């Protein structure tokens, strides 16, 4: 990471709460992170860990009520996205921040053709007229590797396969040359061979366009293949953050360690029995006063019950820069 350079996105102390009939759910608790220019930040976690809610909070995609962003600061350049009006936010969404969602079938509108849907942000945000927008749309489809782009503009979403639809989604997200692309489980609904195609495309596009990407997934394999830096989320908090190689080579948090061990490998030694993480992920109904992983953690001790661990740097340095972990326990010198 280059020092001194301004991050594209800087999130500080974000807290999102859902008010439900059964009480409050603290989905995101004091999450802080930054995103460098041109970087691919992977976000891993199980369902309910708060990874999608965090990213949707950033750009006001959560319906309020029930969602409420209690605290925090989301700096895109110098603008605090939590302070600006809805109209200003609309100018940013799709223009400076692009999204790709998990399910390409439900996130494309079935009654409009692909051309209309790609041209929409171009005309809304960049003020292009129809022929200009069309030319740019063709360019975009070619960029994401859709053959015969000019003709396919007139096709409807159902005429594309899953992988092709995801390419269209990526084209729409890239339409206005965003600074930040948020991809929420973009390959989860796809088959492995199609997933490999999309990952290859994203690697290629990063080299060509150089935007920063936040890639949300539960698949550590995908993270290993494309991310520069990784955040692991659990119970609405970031429990570990590290450059990708450090995270896989030297995981610190017991949750990360356990997660890496539960996944069988397709090469190397075959374990006779899978390691399991016993128990269930928690539902956080109050601001945490203890470690949210303690009930499932093999290393938990008294302090874990008494105090929610804060993120601390591993091997010196500042939090959110090198490798950091939110855990009271240190693996050094102990056999796991």
């Amino acid at each position: 990471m280059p020092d001194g350079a301004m991050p594209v996105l800087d999130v500080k102390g974000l807290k999102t709460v859902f008010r439900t009939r059964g009480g409050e759910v603290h989905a995101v608790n004091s999450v802080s992170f930054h995103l460098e220019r041109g970087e691919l930040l992977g976000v891993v976690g199980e369902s309910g860990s708060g990874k999608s809610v965090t990213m949707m909070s950033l750009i006001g995609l959560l319906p309020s009520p029930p969602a409420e962003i209690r605290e925090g600061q989301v700096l895109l350049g110098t603008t605090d996205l939590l302070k600006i009006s809805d109209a200003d936010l609309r100018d940013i969404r799709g223009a400076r921040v692009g999204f790709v969602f998990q399910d390409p079938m439900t996130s494309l509108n079935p009654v409009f053709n692909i051309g209309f849907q790609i041209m929409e942000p171009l005309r809304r945000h960049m003020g292009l007229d129809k022929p200009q927008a069309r030319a740019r749309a063709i360019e975009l489809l070619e960029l994401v590797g859709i053959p015969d782009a000019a003709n396919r503009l007139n096709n409807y979403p159902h005429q594309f396969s899953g992988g092709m639809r995801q390419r269209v989604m990526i084209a729409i997200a890239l339409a206005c040359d965003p600074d930040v692309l948020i991809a929420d489980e973009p390959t989860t609904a796809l088959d492995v061979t199609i997933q490999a195609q999309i990952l290859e495309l994203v690697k290629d596009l990063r080299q060509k366009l150089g935007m920063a990407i936040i890639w949300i997934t539960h698949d550590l394999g995908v993270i290993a293949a494309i991310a520069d830096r990784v955040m692991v989320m659990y119970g609405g908090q970031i429990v570990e953050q590290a450059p990708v190689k450090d995270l896989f080579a030297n995981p610190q948090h017991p949750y990360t360690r356990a997660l890496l061990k539960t996944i069988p490998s397709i090469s190397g030694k075959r374990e006779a029995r899978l390691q399991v993480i016993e128990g269930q992920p928690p539902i956080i109904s109050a601001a945490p006063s203890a470690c949210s992983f303690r009930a499932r953690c093999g290393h938990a001790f008294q302090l874990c019950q008494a105090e929610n661990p804060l993120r601390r740097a591993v091997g010196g340095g500042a939090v959110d820069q090198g490798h950091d972990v939110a855990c009271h326990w240190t693996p050094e010198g102990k056999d796991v």
Partner: protein
Amino acid sequence: MFDQPVNNLVEVSDLKMYFPIYTGIFRRHTGDVKAVDGVSFNIREGETLGLVGESGCGKSTVGRALLRLYEPTAGSVMISGENIATLDSEALRKKRPTMQMVFQDPQASLNPRMTLADIISEPLIEHTDWPVERRLERVLELMDAVGLNRRFANRFPHEFSGGQRQRIGIARALALNPKFIVCDEPIAALDVSIQAQVVNLLEDLQTRLGLTYLFISHDLSMVRHIADRVAVMYLGRIAELSPRDELFAKPLHPYAEALLSAVNEPDPNRARRERIILQGDVPSPANPPKGCNFCTRCPKAFARCHQEKPELVEVEPGRQVACFLYEDKKPAVSIGRPEAKTEHNQQGETL
């Protein structure tokens, strides 16, 4: 699991499952979706056969046709000596207790209005004449076996998490002491940390009860963990059927090779290696390509692949591959049917 008995519990030969397509105002039968198009394999007693492939390749259809949840179009399915495909409904009903299924979606496969005890005892009501007390005793016994707390017997499915619901589905499948269980993507809907719990449970039950599994999954790393032998399907046909270790060490069929290469390993050094990226998408099973089903995407296809369909033949001891690349290795035993070398397109015309 390692001293493999040679008895085949399940013998499938040339299984076909076509779903008809009706078009036009007269709803004429104009073609078929060939979801499963001539599949043959055996499952030995006490073994786990993994069935892998991408969505739409027909792996779930095989699982369902095996238990005759669909009426197979052609072929035979012998389960401990009886042909499931042709049994009459009364005999089939008698046979049901020996073969059960665990479904993918534990939410959709459990009746939301029934309590856990009702769900697990339903097969007992259907197939035994046990009194209520004995049924309840069996239900509690099954709940212990799958690791559900006995106190939960009167709760409803929505009160459980995904992993627990899958345990309920497994308990129901075990109720009648089956020999053979088809697990159709039993872990696909679960979180990573829960998947391992369910897979370990399935393995424990297999050791304890001597079960035989057909484990259908798209997760190759999990299949490597649980299966003894693995069949790789593509577009309604088996591309390769090999023992687990051999397949993962060196896949023979080009599709199996590409599929394994596409898996992302949770290791940044290995995950960034060069991979085989297949071009294009899987063709429609309503209109499969002439010749080998994989010829449209195969990086190694040659002229013959576009003309004839390769049969699944044994090319190394225990390894069967359907690919012309291995033609020269003398086929020891031909497993597939002696196929007439004429191809039919979906209109049924001879090409």
